[in-house]
């Protein structure tokens, strides 16, 4: 549990004082929500954060919306002013229940201590079941102070909370048939696979069909990056092969995805030749952005488990029919991949950010937890770092909250003390999360902070360069603290490097160092992320590389 105490949560913190629940004191409530997410994202268990009334609760909001967008199970406990004072503009009062209504899957205001146990159980049940999400419980001080007899909670009855987990058998059977009938199938797997723990079922499906597979930003690790069927992430900064594949496929097998605008580009031109099988646990996602030819509402793990059985049954009769067409499809995929692979940039003079990712990838070898912030470095990390398993890649996908990376790494390192955890952060996001250096130092968490420092808000600058005539408005971050002194002030080692020759050894030193480490890497200031699908373009209209200088005739 990650939290920050305050006036109205005093009775709660008093109870925590000698209770075995482990509470981690963060340095800002927003980071409590992010750390709870890091815990939840890296384990699948519910992460808990706690804040006081008023400013404490409002500071949680960004983290809650972030968890909502990425479907992360988080329970937030907030204090509220004493019941009698609610609505009187009391000190540190805010309408938390009203403010967080749209930021949460569900929220509660507990009015009587008699309701408290039931409400807490409902909160955990709601957060972790179905499509996971954040749930907030707002508790007035008098409820915290009240005394009541505890009766164990044995049942939860939420008649309006409809869960569809099994999937319609007839639909699943038809899906299996469609999959074998397809000549150019493509698996489009997302965060839903990771949330439901369906990665093993996904691997079986992909291998049985031998279909090329893309994993979304939220789905990286759902299929191992080293799997031969794995192409890359699709979408705005996806690879040429992934996006061409989506555009040319005749069947999209969409599993636990929501056809996000960053994946589809211009929706009208997205996968124009494809029929769509859409498996999702949330009926409201089906047909929201792209109409599904065959919708299946259900839990990915359960649906894929049964789907694989049907595929297996049909395989002997159906698989040979389209074998030739599918071989040709793979040839085409390989052709695209070879024509424009995702290639990291290297230089002898400057450290290229892609070079940083390649070195981190070498050290991780697909096994480390990588918690990323938001921006260019996030895209490079997603392109170049491999993930052999789910729950290794932690990033703010839907909301894109800067300041996410470091606190999320804190949560992940608490949850997985056995794992090597990298926090890859831009110089902008790092300066939003500096307070948590104290939490790191406090608990001697061996998180390796890698600041990919280009002195700019790189992604915003990239857009200003490309779409706003290179008018660089308010994107230069020209003051950055001395990393060695900054980390030293917190009592752990830090270093700044700027030569490519130092990169490998500096990262190795960081990883070998027993506690936290802050490595500030000065990278090429003007590197941009490619390929790129410009806003409003179709995903096959990618810009593959920066405009090249044109030779001028003599």
């Amino acid at each position, binding site marked *: 549990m990650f939290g920050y105490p305050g006036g109205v949560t005093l009775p709660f913190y008093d109870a925590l004082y000698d*209770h*075995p*629940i*482990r509470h981690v004191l963060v340095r800002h409530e927003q980071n409590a929500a992010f750390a709870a997410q890091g815990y939840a994202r890296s384990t699948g268990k519910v992460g808990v954060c706690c804040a006081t009334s008023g400013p404490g609760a409002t500071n949680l909001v960004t983290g809650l919306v972030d968890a909502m967008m990425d479907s992360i199970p988080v329970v937030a406990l907030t204090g509220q002013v004493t019941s009698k004072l609610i609505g009187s503009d009391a000190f540190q009062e805010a309408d938390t*229940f*009203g403010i967080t*209504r*749209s930021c949460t*899957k*569900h*929220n509660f*205001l507990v009015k009587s201590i008699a309701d408290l146990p039931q409400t807490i*159980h409902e909160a955990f*049940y*709601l957060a972790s079941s179905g499509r996971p999400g954040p749930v907030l419980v707002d508790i007035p001080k008098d409820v915290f102070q009240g005394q009541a007899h505890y009766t*164990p*909670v*044995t*049942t*939860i*009855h*939420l*008649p*309006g*909370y*409809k*869960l569809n987990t099994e999937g319609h058998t007839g639909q699943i059977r038809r899906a299996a048939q469609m999959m074998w009938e397809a000549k150019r199938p493509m698996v489009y797997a997302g965060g839903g696979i990771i949330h439901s723990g369906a990665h093993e079922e996904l691997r079986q499906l992909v291998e049985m069909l031998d279909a090329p597979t893309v994993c979304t930003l939220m789905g990286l690790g759902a299929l191992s990056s080293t799997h031969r069927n794995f192409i890359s992430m699709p979408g705005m900064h996806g690879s040429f092969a992934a996006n061409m594949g989506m555009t040319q496929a005749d069947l999209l097998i969409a599993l636990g995805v929501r056809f996000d605008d960053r994946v589809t580009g211009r929706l009208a031109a997205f996968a124009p030749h494809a029929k769509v099988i859409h498996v999702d646990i*949330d*009926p*409201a996602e089906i*047909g*929201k952005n792209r109409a599904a030819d065959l919708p299946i509402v259900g839990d990915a793990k359960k649906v894929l488990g049964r789907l694989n059985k049907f595929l297996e049954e049909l395989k002997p009769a159906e698989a040979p029919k389209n074998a030739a067409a599918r071989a040709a499809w793979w040839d085409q995929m390989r052709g695209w991949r070879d024509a424009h692979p995702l290639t990291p940039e290297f230089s002898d003079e400057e450290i290229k950010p892609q070079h940083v990712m390649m070195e981190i990838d070498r050290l991780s070898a697909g096994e480390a937890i990588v918690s990323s912030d938001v921006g260019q470095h996030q895209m490079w990390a997603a392109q170049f770092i491999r993930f052999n398993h789910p729950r290794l890649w932690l990033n703010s996908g839907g909301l894109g909250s800067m300041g996410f990376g470091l606190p999320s790494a804190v949560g992940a390192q608490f949850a997985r003390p056995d794992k090597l955890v990298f926090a890859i952060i831009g110089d902008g996001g790092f300066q939003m999360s500096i307070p948590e250096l104290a939490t790191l130092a406090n608990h001697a968490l061996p998180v390796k902070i890698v600041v990919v420092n280009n002195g700019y808000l790189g992604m915003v600058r990239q857009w200003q360069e490309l779409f706003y005539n290179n008018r660089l408005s308010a994107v230069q971050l020209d003051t950055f603290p001395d990393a060695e002194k900054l980390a030293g002030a917190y009592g752990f080692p830090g270093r700044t490097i700027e030569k490519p020759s130092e990169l490998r050894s500096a990262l190795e030193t960081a990883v070998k160092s027993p506690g936290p480490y802050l490595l500030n890497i000065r990278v090429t200031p003007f590197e941009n992320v490619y390929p790129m699908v410009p806003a409003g373009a179709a995903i096959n209209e990618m810009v593959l590389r920066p405009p090249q200088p044109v030779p001028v005739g003599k």
Partner: protein
Amino acid sequence: MLQIISLLVENKPGALMRVTGVLTARGFNIESLTVAKTFDPTLSRISIVVDVESSLRSQVVKQMNKLVNVLQAVDLTDGPAVARELVLIRIRANMNSRTAILKEAEIFGARIVDSSTEGFAIEATGDPEKMNEFIDIMRSYGDIEVTRSGLVAVSLDNKKLRLSPPVVREKTEPVTT
């Protein structure tokens, strides 16, 4: 296009806010809204008329059905349903027009609920178009004040209410270290 949505919700604080939140978050303007308890006092019936682009109609109803406090949300726009509205009108009437007003009220099946030297208070029910006509006619007789209840609707379809059964929690042990 106007859409009629009928919801059965738990009668809990915040339930209405969640339902209207689905609409306001998308920038839709609510034309009318009625809420009242059902025969089961733990449940309320909400009828909403809202201007929603036709492509988003099913999405809005799905989002409402997702709400934990909502037991059922149905789109009654195209389905077989009866929709009615109640209108209360206060009209100033001088001696010359009183008889004519009473006649008109009779034609629309309206009831006089108050009569004074100043004028009348009239109650009418019917579908919204009919009520619009009634109001227009009454306006021609002088100054009026109108209060409309908003649409209430009932589906004529026998749609089964699907509710989630209680979930048994596994025994939770107290945390120890």
